[in-house]
């Protein structure tokens, strides 16, 4: 892709694909939004940990093999053991800057609502910011790194799905 507007369009597409995958609980589709390089990563942590300089995360998939394992956790290991819930992601891009090698650093605000299937009552699961490194490839944009940093420091329940 040549122009910034093409890149911006590809970035919106991959962000939308990410949201659609999670909100439809389609974990292979979630995995497909990541670049296939070995060091592609998904990180979920809290602003509290970040501000204290504490490296611990809620989810830390720091290589492509672990992204695949995240799918296995949800589809094989945990299947049938938890009260399920549906998520609804609301994402707003707030900054986008070109980085090296046809990559972009993209910042977006997010809110994730959840609706447990048994209560049917919707609430906020977490809000925060995505700090993404996105590569533009011949077949579209992919996440090299997706890092979700939550303002929410005390989660209202367990987390099955990535945010």
């Amino acid at each position, binding site marked *: 892709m040549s122009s910034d507007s093409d890149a911006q369009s590809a970035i919106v597409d991959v962000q939308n694909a990410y949201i659609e995958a999670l909100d439809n609980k389609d974990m292979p589709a979630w995995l497909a939004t990541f670049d296939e390089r070995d060091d592609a990563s998904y990180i979920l942590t809290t602003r509290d940990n970040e501000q204290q300089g504490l*490296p*611990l995360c809620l989810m830390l998939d720091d290589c492509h093999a672990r992204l695949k*394992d995240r799918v296995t956790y949800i589809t094989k*290991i945990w299947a049938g053991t*938890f009260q399920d819930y549906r998520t609804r992601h609301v994402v707003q891009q707030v900054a986008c800057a070109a980085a090296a090698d046809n990559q972009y650093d993209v910042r977006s605000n997010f809110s994730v609502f959840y609706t447990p299937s048994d209560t049917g009552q919707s609430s906020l699961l977490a809000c925060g910011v995505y700090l993404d490194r996105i590569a533009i490839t011949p077949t579209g944009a992919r996440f090299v790194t997706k890092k979700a940093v939550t303002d929410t420091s005390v989660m209202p329940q*367990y987390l*099955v799905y990535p945010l």
Partner: protein
Amino acid sequence: MHIDAARTGLVWPANLNEIPKEVFTRADIFDDELKQIFYGAEWHPVAHVGEIPNPGDFKTFSLGEIPLLIARAKDNEVRVFYNACSHRGNQVEAAPYGNKREFECPYHRWLFGIDGDLVGCPSEREFSPGFERKNYPLKQPRTDKFQGLVFITLSDETPPLKDFLGDIRPTLAEAMAGDGRLKLIGYQRVKYKTNWKAYCDNDGYHAPLLHRAFQLLNWQGGTGRQFATREYGHIGFESELTVARVGNTLNDPSIVEFKGVDPSKGSRVVELFPFFIATKHLDTINLRFAIARSVDETEVHYAYFHHLDDDDELVRHRIRQSSNLLGPCGLVSMEDASVFHRVHIGNHTPGTVAFQKGVTDTRKLSFQFKQNDETGNLPRWEHYRRVMGFERSTT
């Protein structure tokens, strides 16, 4: 403090393995628990000194509804204060953590050192006759420590911490890497929609059944033991873990590797009365500081640590493993978190719950447990019943 247990109208079953479900759901019983247990003659872990490693570091926490401020002073001593100004009771520090040279109450600008001494108070000359600053430090509950784990109690009648912990001490030490020389690597915080007693009522029976990861990674079959202390019913699990056989299940087996040396391969779990849990699983060192917020809300701060002697590689490994193994979205614990909610829903039905696995005599408390028995929880329930003053039915 004494409560009128008869007021509750609760009849405790004669069988030792039965627990009345209403203790999990009645708000009036929760209020009694605050008085009898959380503000009574028990010790409560509120921090590990490794969470606040530098002078001036502090964290805030709660014991039931009582706000606490825990700070490391210049003398490196970690002190626990009631988080309330000695003047009019205003909450002194609102931040969950930080580093400060002193604590200032914003209401009338009373200023306290990080050792709790009152060092400044405007218009002091107009105070009551005989006022002296030294009589107005931040107040401290009775405090003691075990290998850096900081305990408080609100009662003068609580036996010394050493006696409270009793035979659980060696296992608790092993859960804290042997000597408690720990440094914080971060938190996972969550509020479970469950009663505090359901949160800490997990058992040895469920692990291989609920957690499919144990089957898929072939983690079963290691030798181990479960024991409970005669007083208080603290529970200890010591398990050898067979090395996980990842097979085709995981693409990255490094997450379940064991790289440490002490204690030998495996897992230690300690549950102290009333509901503190310390876990050392593979190379993950996890202390769970919990707050009973209400009858149906339990907030848990999973704090993770590395050992001070770890090299960089081991620290990195602990960070990766700790970020993926236990806690509210961990490989072998997310299911527990979900069960906490479901148990609480089910506990609103009438009647009693019954422990079965390992029960040999329903009228006699046993201290002989197999690793996967659920009877290890019964001494703690008996301590709970006695402290709460619930009379056991004789029929």
